C-alpha cells in the first residue's frame, strides 16, 4: 500500500514538468523513488564509512602514502596478506570438492531426500555463527572429538586447533552453503537429457560428464567459488577463535591496529587493500558467472 502511494507520488513528481501525454516518463521516473530510501541508508552506513577509511588511510597521522609504504614494506604484513589469500583459496577448493557432488546429488534424488539434504545445508545458517565456531573449538581441540577418534583408531593425534588446517576446516563448514546453493541452482536447470544425448552419440559416462555436464555447470562453480573466496577473505571470527598466531588473517590485523593500537591510518590502509582485492576479484569473476547459453528454445 505504501509502495503504490509512493509510486503514485513519485510518478506525479517526475511527470509534472513533462507534457501530459507521456506515460513512458512516468514509468521511468516513478520506480527510482522507491529505491531512494534504501540508497540513502546505504550511502550513510556503507558509503560514508568506507570513504572515512580511505581518507584516514591517506590522512593519518599526516597526508601522504606512508601507511601504504608501511604496509607493503613490512614483511609480516605481506606474509599475512599472502596467507589470507592462501587460506581463502583452500577454503574455496575444499568447498568446491565437497559441494559439487553434494549439489549434484540434490538434483538427482527424490523430493523427500532432497528436502533432507537442503535442510542439512540450511541448518548451519540458523545456528548462531559464534556458537558454531565454539562447536569447532570443542571438536578440534587437542582433547577433542576428532583427536579422540584418531587416537582410538591408532592413528595418533593431530594438532588442529590454532593451525591453518583447523581454520580451513571451520571456515569451509561455515561457507559450504554459499557454494552448494549457487551450484544447485545452476545444476537443476541442466537438462539431463543432454547427458543422455551425449551417451547416445557415443560418449562414455565420464566423457559425457566432462564435455557436457561440467561445462554447463561452470557458471555455478564460478559463482560459488568466488562468493566463498570473497567471504573467506574477510573472515574474522572463525580465524580469531580457531587460529593461532601462525594463522592470523588480515581482518585480525586490521582489528588489532584500530582497536588495540588505535592506529587508524595503518588499519585503514590494510582495509583499503582488502577492499580493493575483493572488488578486483568480483570484477574479474562477474562475467564468468553469467550463464552464456540459455537453454530453451525460441519459437
Amino acid at each position, binding site marked *: 500500500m505504501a509502495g503504490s502511494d509512493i509510486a503514485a507520488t513519485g510518478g506525479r513528481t517526475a511527470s509534472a514538468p513533462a507534457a501530459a501525454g507521456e506515460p513512458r516518463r512516468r514509468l521511468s521516473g516513478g520506480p527510482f523513488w522507491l529505491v531512494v530510501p534504501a540508497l540513502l541508508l546505504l550511502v550513510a552506513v556503507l558509503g560514508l564509512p568506507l570513504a572515512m577509511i580511505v581518507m584516514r588511510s591517506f590522512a593519518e597521522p599526516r597526508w601522504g602514502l606512508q601507511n601504504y609504504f608501511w604496509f607493503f614494506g613490512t614483511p609480516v604484513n605481506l606474509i599475512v596478506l599472502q596467507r589470507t589469500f592462501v587460506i581463502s583459496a583452500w577454503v574455496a577448493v575444499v568447498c568446491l570438492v565437497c559441494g559439487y557432488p553434494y549439489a549434484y546429488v540434490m538434483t538427482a534424488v527424490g523430493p523427500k531426500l532432497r528436502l533432507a539434504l537442503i535442510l542439512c545445508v540450511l541448518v548451519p545458517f540458523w545456528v548462531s555463527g559464534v556458537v558454531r565456531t565454539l562447536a569447532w573449538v570443542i571438536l578440534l581441540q587437542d582433547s577433542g572429538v576428532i583427536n579422540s577418534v584418531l587416537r582410538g583408531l591408532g592413528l595418533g593425534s593431530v594438532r588442529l586447533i590454532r593451525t591453518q588446517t583447523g581454520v580451513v576446516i571451520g571456515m569451509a563448514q561455515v561457507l559450504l552453503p554459499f557454494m552448494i546453493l549457487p551450484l544447485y541452482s545452476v545444476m537443476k536447470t541442466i537438462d539431463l537429457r543432454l547427458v543422455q544425448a551425449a551417451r547416445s552419440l557415443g560418449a562414455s559416462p565420464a566423457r559425457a560428464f566432462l564435455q557436457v555436464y561440467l*561445462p554447463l555447470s561452470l557458471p555455478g562453480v564460478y559463482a560459488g567459488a568466488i562468493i566463498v573466496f570473497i567471504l573467506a577473505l574477510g573472515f574474522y571470527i572463525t580465524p580469531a577463535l580457531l587460529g593461532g598466531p601462525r594463522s592470523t588473517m588480515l581482518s585480525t590485523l586490521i582489528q588489532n591496529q584500530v582497536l588495540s593500537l588505535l592506529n587508524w591510518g595503518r588499519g585503514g590502509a590494510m582495509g583499503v587493500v582488502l577492499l580493493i582485492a575483493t572488488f578486483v576479484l568480483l570484477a574479474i569473476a562477474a562475467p564468468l558467472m553469467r550463464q552464456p547459453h540459455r537453454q530453451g528454445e525460441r519459437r
Partner: protein
Amino acid sequence: MAPSGTRGAAIDIRAVSKRYGNFAALDNVSLHIEPGEFMTLLGPSGSGKTTTLNVIAGFTEVSSGALEVGGRSVVGVPAHKRNIGVVFQHYALFPHMTVARNVAYPLGLRGISGAERERRVNKALDMVKMVDFGHRYPSELSGGQQQRVALARATVFDPPLLLMDEPLGALDKKLREWLQLEIKRIHRELGTTFVYVTHDQEEALVLSDRIAVFNQGRIEQIGTGRELYDEPATLFVGKFIGDSTILRGPAATSGGETALDIGGQKVATAGRLANGGTPVMLLRPEKLALARPGATAENGRNRLSGRVGEAIYLGSGSKYEVVLADGSKAIVRSGLDAESFAIGEEVDLLFSGGDAKLLADDATADLTLT
C-alpha cells in the same frame, strides 16, 4: 547417397518386460523391425512406447527378455557403445556448443577429425538444409531449426538405426507437416532403420511403413496403416486410429451371425467372437450412410434410427454426428454429392453387416484415449 534399404539394422525385441516395483512399464513386448524399415510406436502417454525406445537406446535396462540390434544382442551394452542415433523430443542440443560443434561431437568421439570431419558435418547439415547456421548457438535457432540440427547430429555418424522420440511434438501444425515430409525424404536417402515414437495417429499414418500400437505396456497390434484402419485387432486400436462409431448392446449369437440390440433395433453381422468377451461393432465413418426415415434402402442393410446432433461442412464433404436411440453417437462422413441433413432432423443410419467389425468390448479403450 547410399542406395536405400541396405544400411539399416534389423531389430529383434523378444518378450521384453520392464518392471518398476509392481508396475510393468513394458509387459512381454515382442517386436521385429526389418532393416531400413520405418516403424512407428504409437500409443497414448504412459503406454510403454517411450520405454521401448529407451530400452533400444540403452537408457533403460530391461527386466527380462532379449534385445538384438543388427543380429547382435545389446542387453547390458552401455548406451555409448550401441552406435544408435537418437533424436529427442526437446532436441537436447548442447547449449554451450555451436551448431557445427554439436554435429561434429559424435565424430570427435569416433576419432574422425580434420577435413573428413568437416566434410561430414557439412554433408549432414546440407541434408537438413542448415549449412548456413553452423556458427550459431542452439538458443539462436527456432524450434524447427533446432530439430533439424538434432536430426543432423543423430545421423552424422551413419548409425544403422535412428530412434526419434516425439521429435515434432513441440512444433506447430504447419511446421510439423512440413518436417514430416522432410523426415520421410531423409529416411529414403539414408536407408537407415527408423523407429519413431508418437501419440499422433495421423503422423504415424503419414510416416510409417508399419505401426505398432501400444496400450498399457503391451503391443495391441502391429501392421501397416491400412491394416490397422481396416482390420483393427482390438477395440483400442480401432478407436485410436481414425474416427469410429462403436455400437454396444445386448448380443445374441445364432449360427454364424452375431446380432446386437441397439435401443430396441437389431443390427447383425456375419461372424462371431473367437475368444469370447462381449461383442461390439466398430464402423468407419465412410462405411455409414444417412437416409431420410422411410426411404427405401438396399436389401440386407442394417438400419438404425437417430437424430442429427451436429453437422459439419468439411469442403470435401460433410461430417455428421448422429445420436442414436440408445443415446450413443455415430460419426458419418458423406461425399459432396450426398444428400444433406440439418441439425435436429430425424434420420436413418444405414450400413451393411460386412462393413461392421466385430470386436471384444474393452473398458480401457475408452479410458486411455487422449
